[in-house]
């Protein structure tokens, strides 16, 4: 798994992409964007707007999410690149493993509110603002901005997978970094693409929402467990394995 080059330990490309995939899938399991997309679709249909307008708004929303995710993961990678070095990288991995595991436990405990519906644990004023703005959105630019805001609104939960992805990205070559950023953006938006396709193909919004509400416990458990497992895997693969390689190399 690890390649040793003059005391610098870098992961190979396939490991980096596996980490990116898992981080992106965890990112995709967070639900603020899906909630807002459901609300946006329901209000657009309820206002008797055309199907073309519905598709335009949902696609704009998904594009907004995709763009903001790519911007954030690129920012994380760039910021981590500035701090990383031969020694600092290990410290960064340890810190990110800790953050990931702590956040995993927090998601288990807090992600969804203990009430009917799919309200999540974000400040209520922010949730009310997003709800109001989503209901009023009629233009594609508004939907695009809402998509971007949904990523920002959930940053409290998203920063662990974003940091993990950032740190995995800086281990890649520049050309692969670009591919990695795009790949992360696409995989993390998959849940929204699926909901958008379901709405676009004529599925009932209430059935989608009911499914989300029925399975919210499972989604919460999956996201929390994903973060815990990812944190543990990274600790074993990037921290403990490197430490043992150094110890063996020093003997």
């Amino acid at each position, binding site marked *: 798994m690890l390649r040793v080059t003059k005391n610098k330990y870098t992961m190979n490309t396939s490991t980096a992409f596996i980490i990116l995939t898992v981080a992106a899938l965890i990112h995709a399991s967070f639900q*603020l964007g899906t*909630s*807002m997309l*459901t*609300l946006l679709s*329901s*209000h657009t*249909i*309820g*206002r*008797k707007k055309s199907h073309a307008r519905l598709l335009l708004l949902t696609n704009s929303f998904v594009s907004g999410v995709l763009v903001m995710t790519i911007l954030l993961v690129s920012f994380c990678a760039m910021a981590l690149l500035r701090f990383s070095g031969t020694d600092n990288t290990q410290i960064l991995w340890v810190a990110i493993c800790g953050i990931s595991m702590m956040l995993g436990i927090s998601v288990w405990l807090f992600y969804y509110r203990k*009430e*009917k*519906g*799919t*309200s*999540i644990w974000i400040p209520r004023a922010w*949730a009310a603002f*997003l*709800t109001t703005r*989503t209901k009023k959105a009629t233009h594609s630019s508004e939907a695009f901005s809402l998509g971007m805001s949904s990523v920002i609104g959930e940053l409290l939960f998203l920063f662990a997978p974003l940091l993990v992805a950032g740190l995995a990205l800086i281990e890649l070559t520049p050309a692969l970094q670009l591919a990695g950023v795009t790949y992360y953006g696409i995989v993390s938006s998959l849940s929204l693409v699926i909901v958008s396709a379901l709405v676009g193909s*004529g599925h*009932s*919004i*209430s*059935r989608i*929402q*009911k499914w989300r*509400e029925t399975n919210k416990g499972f989604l919460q458990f999956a996201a929390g467990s994903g973060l815990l497992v990812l944190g543990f895997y990274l600790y074993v693969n990037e921290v403990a394995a490197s430490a043992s390689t150094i110890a063996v190399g020093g003997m």
Partner: protein
Amino acid sequence: MTTPAIDTHVVKRGGARTTERFSPEKLHASVQAACLSVRSPEGEAEIIAHRVVAAASQWCYQKSTVTSRDIRRIAARGLELLHPEAAYLYQTHEMVV
């Protein structure tokens, strides 16, 4: 719409804003939107909204003040009988985000 005028005042959610007169048109629009959101045909949505508003107006009759939550609850109860899917969306749309 043939709903008679009702002199009932509605206390808005949270009680912070001023009260307003009960508006059957407003309730009609929200129930109709809920039905349309679950892709009911327009005619069906119109009929269902009309019936729900009639039931809610009857409930409001001779009450001087009600809360918007009361109206929503009564409307949801009526809608549940006529279109359960729309009623689900109507009841939970504030609890999505």
